[in-house]
């Protein structure tokens, strides 16, 4: 029984998801607005529950690991899901149908991520991955009246299926070479058996599969189109939570199962990180649509996170965790501002943001400071995150990589400032109305802005939490 207690958060999440589904069928069409509130309250409660279990550790059913590392990511997923739910109230209501399913899918996707972050075994890892991917396919295509949304869904399902197949192939090769699906046992088999060609091939396939999930170049092709087409809150959720989940699983598999091969895969990750940072940032420059801009920016963010993997150290994992958490608030902040703008003006084009600072100081400020956090400009939290990431690779002697990364993040300042330029330097069009922001969204925006400021000025609590979890992961 004790072991089931460890699964409290997962069980409750599953219950919440199914409950919302049932609720959606029971409540009459016109009263379904409340479902969003139920979902948000449930997610908030789950977040508290997950946080209270932050020190719990143990293994359930042989291959499912509850540890501070996984729980940290669960808190992260739930925070992202909560912000997404709050962000969706008005957006989904406007779409006008299937509100119950929407929130249920959101919660189930979160469940998938949790499983992904906690599995210490390849089959359950794959299960979590599929749960997450398939729910996201539906969510991405959720705007029935919009061809772009349908395109996003199709693209995500086709490319997602392909990447899943690649990953699965990698998993089967690793299983074949090591004779086990449990990560710990694989590590032992690799330590004693050495690197066989099949294992190396499997590693490469695994890397490609995960690179798809975290949108690392050259496996990023799907993301700009999917991000642009999907409903804005879903895009936000997809960009932060599924990426963080990808990193959690990636760290578990590569650091947990294949540490003895790190000389081999670190080289590959260096190549991925370089490509991702350079391409993501450079291609973001000419974008004119805010969602595409954020898509490329989030590709580049994956590049920075990969630096933590490259460093192959406790500091690197801690830096990934820290950065991933800030990235939730930074990116969701930007997407919430974009949603608020869309709800009033129905546009995602950056040129339509002209004069936004005059029309809604709050929305403009949230967008500006979220983008600055993504760029890593103090006193926003993103700076501290990048500081840790760069420190982790410099400590391993990759100074050139750090220089490249920092220069690229300065490039990112350029395109973020183009948005700031439109908002602050431009004049609002004639006869424009003030941007009206729903109270819930307003609170969520203010909260994430405060989080970014507070963690930028006083990063200590989250630093300790992330670093301690990272230490616990490395030395269980």
């Amino acid at each position: 029984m004790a072991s089931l207690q460890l699964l409290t958060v997962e069980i409750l999440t599953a219950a919440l998801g199914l409950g919302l589904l049932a609720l959606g069928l029971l409540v009459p069409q016109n009263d379904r607005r409340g479902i969003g509130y139920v979902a948000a309250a449930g997610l908030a409660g789950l977040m508290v529950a997950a946080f209270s279990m932050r020190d719990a550790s143990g293994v359930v059913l042989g291959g499912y690991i509850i540890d501070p590392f996984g729980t940290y990511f669960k808190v992260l997923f739930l925070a992202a899901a909560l912000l997404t739910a709050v962000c969706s109230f008005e957006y989904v209501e406007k779409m006008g149908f299937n509100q119950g399913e929407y929130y249920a899918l959101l919660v189930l996707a979160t469940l998938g991520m949790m499983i992904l972050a906690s599995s210490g075994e390849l089959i359950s890892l794959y299960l979590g991955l599929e749960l997450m991917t398939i729910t996201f396919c539906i969510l991405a295509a959720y705007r029935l009246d919009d061809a772009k949304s349908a395109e996003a869904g199709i693209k995500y399902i086709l490319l997602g299926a392909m990447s899943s197949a690649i990953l699965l192939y990698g998993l089967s090769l690793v299983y074949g070479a090591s004779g086990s699906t449990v990560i710990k046992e694989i590590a032992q088999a690799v330590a004693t058996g050495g690197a066989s060609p099949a294992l190396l091939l499997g590693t490469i396939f695994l890397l490609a599969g995960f690179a798809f999930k975290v949108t690392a170049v050259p496996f990023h092709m799907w993301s700009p189109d999917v991000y642009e087409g999907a409903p804005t809150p879903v895009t936000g959720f997809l960009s932060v939570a599924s990426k963080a989940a990808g990193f959690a699983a990636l760290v578990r598999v590569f650091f947990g199962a294949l540490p003895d091969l790190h000389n081999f895969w670190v080289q590959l990750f260096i190549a991925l990180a370089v490509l991702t940072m350079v391409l993501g940032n450079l291609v973001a420059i000419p974008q004119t649509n805010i969602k595409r801009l954020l898509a490329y920016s989030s590709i580049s963010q994956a590049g920075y996170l990969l630096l933590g993997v490259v460093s192959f150290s406790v500091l690197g994992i801690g830096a990934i965790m820290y950065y991933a958490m800030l990235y939730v608030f930074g990116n969701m902040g930007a997407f919430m501002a974009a949603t608020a703008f869309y709800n009033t003006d129905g546009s995602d084009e950056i040129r339509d943001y002209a004069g936004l600072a005059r029309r809604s100081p709050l929305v403009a400020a949230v967008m500006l400071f979220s983008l600055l956090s993504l760029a890593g400009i103090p006193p926003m939290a993103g700076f501290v995150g990048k500081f840790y990431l760069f420190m982790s690779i410099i400590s391993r002697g990759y100074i050139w990589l750090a220089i490249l990364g920092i220069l690229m993040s300065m490039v990112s300042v350029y395109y973020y400032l183009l948005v700031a330029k439109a908002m602050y330097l431009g004049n609002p069009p004639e006869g424009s109305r003030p941007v009206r922001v729903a109270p819930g969204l307003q609170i969520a925006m203010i909260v994430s802005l405060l989080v970014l400021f507070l963690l930028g000025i006083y990063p200590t609590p989250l630093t300790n939490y992330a670093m301690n979890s990272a230490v616990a992961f490395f030395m269980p």
Partner: protein
Amino acid sequence: MNFPILTAIMLAPVVGLLLILLIPEREELTIKITAAAATFVSLVLAILAYVLYDYGRGGLQFLQDVPWVPSFGINYSVGVDGLSMPMVLLTAIVIFTGVFASWDMTKRVKEFFIFLLMLVTGVFGVFISRDLFFFYLFFEVAVIPMYLLIGIWGSTRKEYAAMKLTLYLLVGSAFALIGIIATFLYAAQQLGHATFDIQTLATVKYDLGFQKFVFFLMLIGFGVLVPIWPLHLWSPDGHVAAPTAVSMLHAGVLMKLGAYGLIRVGLFLFPEGAKYWAPLIAVLCIVNVVYGAMIAMVQKDLKFVIGYSSVSHMGYVLLGIAALNTLSLNGAVAQMFAHGIMTALFFALVGNVYHKAHTREIARFGGLAHQMPRVAAGFLIGGLASLGLPGLNNYVAEFLIFIGSFTREQTLLGGILSYRILSILAISGIVITATYVLRVVKNTFFGPRKPEWDHLEDARGVEMVPIVVLVATLILFGLLPSLQIDMINSGVAPLVAKIEAAKAIGGIF
């Protein structure tokens, strides 16, 4: 006395900023008064700290330490010594007068003062930080408000200039950041514990290759801000485009951040690296001085003249740094202060003229002393300070720099060049300076009265605040240099001791 005076100096603008956030946008006068009050508090506290600083004892004073991120050895630790105290005072004077120079601002007043106070908070923070992490953090805080201030309230190609400036500064700071992290990691390995404390980092023996490499990174990082030729391209554009108060703060204080960083982090932590790269700095700074002055000579726009004159004057500061001895470093810091006050005065006056005449083209002016005698007088005093007239602050500083670098007996490039020759070349810059300053003064303010400008009103009321305060400062420290030099010397002495203790090594050429 346990009152955290330095933190209070830094936080006064933050309090002002938060108050302004709560004031409705149309209450423009209230907003301005709040900003003035906040900066006045900083100024009074800065003067108090300056007076209370015991330079007989020297070293870092008014210390305050708060553990911040213990696992990385990051502390919020502040303190000032003879190098940073004058800079804090300079910042306080310039921002206080800058607020009054912006009194006629009518466009988006609330946002303007919010960003202005945000900017100055960062600047104060850099000068009082003893912790390298916070040093860099504050350094970067200043950049983005700058972009918006220039982009929204600027003139002449403002969007281009704002973006150019921002990117230059950020790319520069990227190099500094690498240097800082590398230093931190190196020191953590040597010391056995993580720390960002500059004093502790200075006790570590860095090997020569590391010093050369990291000092070079710092030279680029802080050199962009100084600005060292050829990394100066952002500065004239930025100065010209910026609104008055921002030009004042920018040329007056922000450029000093670069030189200060170079001394505080570069020289203090890596004396051997500094010795290695000093000849390069010495040669480049002569280009700054002479080239900057020559370009200033042919400008048509008043603000461009001052923009390039800043490039030229900062060359002297660099020469003082490159000569690496007590006199020259004293002079360098004094010059940072003197130039800051002088250039702020210039920009305040030009802003005054521009606001009323809506042009800055020198050729269109003439005889403005008839209509604006007070502005003309202020400009003349600034001009005389600029060309190093004895009795004004700049003279003291430049004199020390020249003596210091002239007495340095070292030859460069296998005997072709020496510090003496470089000093003589630098002194020739004074002559060019005199030419362009007097040309501008003559063509703008003197000569026959032009009826075209009869509608211009002279500076009066609050507009007089910047002129009076800045001129008084120039004269005070010009007549009583000991007020300043004793203070600076107490900060320079340990630095020079460290440089002299360092291994003698040959320069890069």
